[in-house]
């Protein structure tokens, strides 16, 4: 069996069972969080089809994504003609407020100049009252992961619309790639502390849609164009996550852009998972509002602490392997440190080169953690065999490792393809942490129970 040392020295060139998805997927999720927006992927139809299938399987909601349906001819002569037809057809069928265009490896390699092409379309169709807003983002999937696509798209949207007028009392919130339930929680928190949030993106309703009796092609909800414009006049931007789209040296986040170009102060911290991170979040909110945290949340916090106490002996000292997007695993580790679970491996398919340093500097784990970026599931599996964790914490793609090793998997993050309710998993705030804590503790207890010779029904 390979030891950890050998694993590190044995580098694989191929990626075996990737722990990341491609950039246009991230772009599509962001576009779905904009009101009246239809995502349009500029490339082969397979990209849109695959991404739709992946998102639909996770969110269990309709996810319409149009394609410019490249053929061999388009690949040779360029995608302008197809893009024009696609915009016309999407406009006619959906009457969208905005079409969010994302490029692909194909259109990037042939070098379609999106800015020019879109400009030409707008010029040709000047005066058309149905003409939607057209925004684009460069998402070649050979650069970065779905997370880069996600944050780059937010930046594109903000760049396209933000203007600075008189500073308002609104606060921008860039939550990152969280679940619809998390976004819903955030909106509730902001309402309770009397802040008007501009959340980009906001797919809390669109990707977790209610049944109304009427099917809406463009479901209600999402960040409005007006809100995107107002991001430039907000009194501050809150941005969750340390790594974001940083793997690309030139990259900038939307909050950084707003700070640099419009002087909107940027407040950046960890995704608020766990008590410490959530405390930090609420203390920022206190500063922004000059008011104490509402009792609802101090109570939630108190109950969470109480739950930690009740459950500590079932989780303390357990060994976990955590995997997923870089910022997500950072936030998870911070929470696991709190409850006394040792993270023996923290892995991500992301490749920013920053993961190790950020964890050491920002989280300061008590024990040394094996931290690996640019890792795939086969590498995770090899390390798991060596380190024998008690639990895997991450998305459903790691299930095969859990199955092989006979250890449980606590499903969090994206994608959850083998269970219902992926969009309803709460991760953040005191409430989300409470749900996570119960999930993890109960997963561990279930494992003990199933392996117990007695089969206790009482703890």
């Amino acid at each position, binding site marked *: 069996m390979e030891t950890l040392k050998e694993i590190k020295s044995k580098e694989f*060139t*191929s*990626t*075996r*069972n*990737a722990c*990341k*998805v*491609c*950039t246009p997927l991230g772009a599509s999720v962001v576009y779905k969080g904009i009101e009246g927006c239809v995502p*349009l992927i500029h*490339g*082969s*139809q*397979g*990209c*849109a*089809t*695959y*991404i*739709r*299938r*992946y998102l*639909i399987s996770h969110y*269990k*909601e*309709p996810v*319409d*994504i*149009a*394609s*410019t*349906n*490249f*053929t*061999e*001819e388009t*690949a040779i002569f360029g995608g302008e003609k*197809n893009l024009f*037809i*696609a*915009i*016309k*057809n999407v406009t*006619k*069928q959906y009457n969208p407020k905005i079409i969010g265009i994302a490029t692909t*490896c*194909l259109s*990037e*390699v042939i070098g379609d100049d999106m800015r020019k092409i879109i400009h030409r379309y707008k010029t040709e169709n000047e005066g058309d009252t149905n003409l939607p807003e057209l925004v684009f983002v460069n998402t*070649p*999937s*050979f*650069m970065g992961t779905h997370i880069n696509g996600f944050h780059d798209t937010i930046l594109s949207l903000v760049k396209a619309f933000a203007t600075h007028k008189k500073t308002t009392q609104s606060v921008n919130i860039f939550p990152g790639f969280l679940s619809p339930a998390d976004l819903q929680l955030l909106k509730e928190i902001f309402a309770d502390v009397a802040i008007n949030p501009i959340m980009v993106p906001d797919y809390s309703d669109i990707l977790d*849609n209610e049944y109304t*009796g009427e*099917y809406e*092609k463009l479901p209600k909800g999402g960040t409005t164009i007006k809100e995107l414009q107002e991001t430039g006049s907000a009194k501050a931007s809150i941005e969750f996550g340390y790594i974001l789209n940083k793997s690309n040296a030139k990259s900038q986040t939307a909050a950084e852009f707003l700070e640099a170009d419009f002087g909107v102060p940027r407040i950046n911290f960890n995704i608020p998972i766990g008590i410490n991170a959530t405390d930090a979040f609420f203390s920022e909110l206190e500063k922004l509002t000059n008011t104490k945290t509402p009792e609802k949340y101090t109570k939630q916090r108190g109950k969470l602490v109480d739950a930690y106490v009740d459950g500590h002996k079932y989780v303390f000292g357990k060994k976990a392997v955590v995997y997923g997007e870089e910022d997500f695993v950072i936030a998870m580790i911070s929470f696991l440190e709190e409850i006394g679970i040792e993270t023996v491996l923290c892995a991500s*398919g992301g490749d920013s080169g920053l993961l190790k340093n950020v964890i050491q500097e920002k989280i300061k784990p008590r024990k040394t953690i094996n931290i690996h970026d640019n890792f795939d599931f*086969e590498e995770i599996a090899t390390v798991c065999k060596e380190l024998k964790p008690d639990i895997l914490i991450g998305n459903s793609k790691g299930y095969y490792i859990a199955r092989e090793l006979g250890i449980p998997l606590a499903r969090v993050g994206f994608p959850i393809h083998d269970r219902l309710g992926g969009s309803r998993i709460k991760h953040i705030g005191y409430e989300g942490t409470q749900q996570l804590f119960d999930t993890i503790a109960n997963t561990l207890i279930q494992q003990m129970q199933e392996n117990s010779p007695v089969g206790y029904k009482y703890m």
Partner: protein
Amino acid sequence: MSTDNKTNIFPDTSELIEEILNKYPSKVAKKRSKSLVSNDPEKDQEIQANIRTIPGIITQRGCCYAGCKGVILGPTRDIINIVHGPIGCSFYAWLTRRNQTDAGVDGENYMNYCFSTDMQDTNIVFGGEKKLETAIREAYEMFKPHSIGVFSTCPIGLIGDDVHAVSRKMKEELGINIFGFSCEGYKGVSQSAGHHIANNGIFKHVVGLNDTDPGGKFKINLLGEYNIGGDSFVLEKYFEEMGITLVSTFSGNSTMSQFENAHMADLNAVMCHRSINYIAEMLEQKYGIPWIKINFIGADATAKSLRRIAEYFEDEELMAKAEAIIAREMLEVKATIEDVKTRTEGKLCMMYVGGSRAHHYQELFGEIGMRTISAGYEFGHRDDYEGRKVLDSIKIDADSRNIEELEISKEEANWREDLVEKKTALKNKGYAFSDYDGMMPDMEKNSLVIDDISHWETEKLIEYYKPDIIGAGIKEKYVIQKYGVPLKQLHSYDYGGPYAGFKGAINFYNDIDKMVNTKIWGLIPPPWKNEPELVAKMADAAY
């Protein structure tokens, strides 16, 4: 609703078609109109199919790569499939089709793996052939697999990496079978192009490598059966019981060794005509093995198919065995139908799926008294709708011309003159070979046939027909269910299945019964609850 087909024919569709087309820009509408046909089984009608999807019309279709890697090679367990390209293509095709396989205790099975060269920007700029070579070497060192397949994706075709040259080189170096597929996503108009490319690749690089007689008196290949939800396992039992040697299945519960040996069979039984007819044709051209169309979706269809296979071999004992299985299995089938039909009779279904499933599943629905009011393929060609008689009249457009047609010549050493003679003799007795009449002749008058249905069209059809169930895929599932209509996934079976054979048919009847009659639908009154039911419209149309 009455189920008497004679007096209760489906309503005229002209208004509906007009309403659908109205939403499109006029050029698009004109083009699209040829893909919507109000069916008349008495007439020879032409439908436009296998043409490019119009950009911006949200389609069910996937890409060439999806068809090549996912459908044809994906279900084969002892080949490592390396996707040469950026990460998405490989990741999205990672074990998402629910093909099952039985590798035994220690058998080779790499279907759980998703290998990629994970091309980065520097590889795109400087070329990725070296990276591919390393990836092949790594896959070999890890598993020493029987074979390795390499799949080219969109950017690879553009930067000009030669997957075939790299494969040849590595085959030489490692001494196992390694071959490449130029299945870039932009090729062709749907996954169908990928099926063709995969058929060509397997035929060129694998079929015919092993001349060992697989043994047995009756040897067949099953083509176009993908073992979704364990379908193949059901069928394999019937063949075993009948004493038929199943030389290979393209591709479900399959191995490369089976493919190498496929030319030793006496008959090719074709299930999914669209995805695999190329191999059937090539096996006949090169080795003289005839093919017949069969269908194991539907109890009657299964009985008919078992009989046809037995008849081909003209063996009394074999025919008796087939009849014994049919008689035994039909008891439970009939009992289930009798029960389920009381709750499903007269209900309406629609199906938009695949290249043969939209046809085959009509059988199953029909057996429990449900009528197909509209159906269409996602990636079918005209012959899948109208039958192979139209093959010569299909115009080859630029997109199809780009897919290689292999030049096949007779292989004297393994030529089966006996089978050629058998075919002639049987043909004279009225036994049909290379036959597929397509979906349209089997559908009712005025049912609406639609190729490559779009999102918008699906919505219009639901509003108009108010079907009781729709068969399609995951991408359509939640839109349709928002309308209060249950959707049966006919690609992945919603974790259910098997649905093939007699046992599968029973599973299907029960699953559909549960789906259309669950109390959930009572909680979500469909938007048209106050509108007159289609039955009224249909009664009007009958006069």
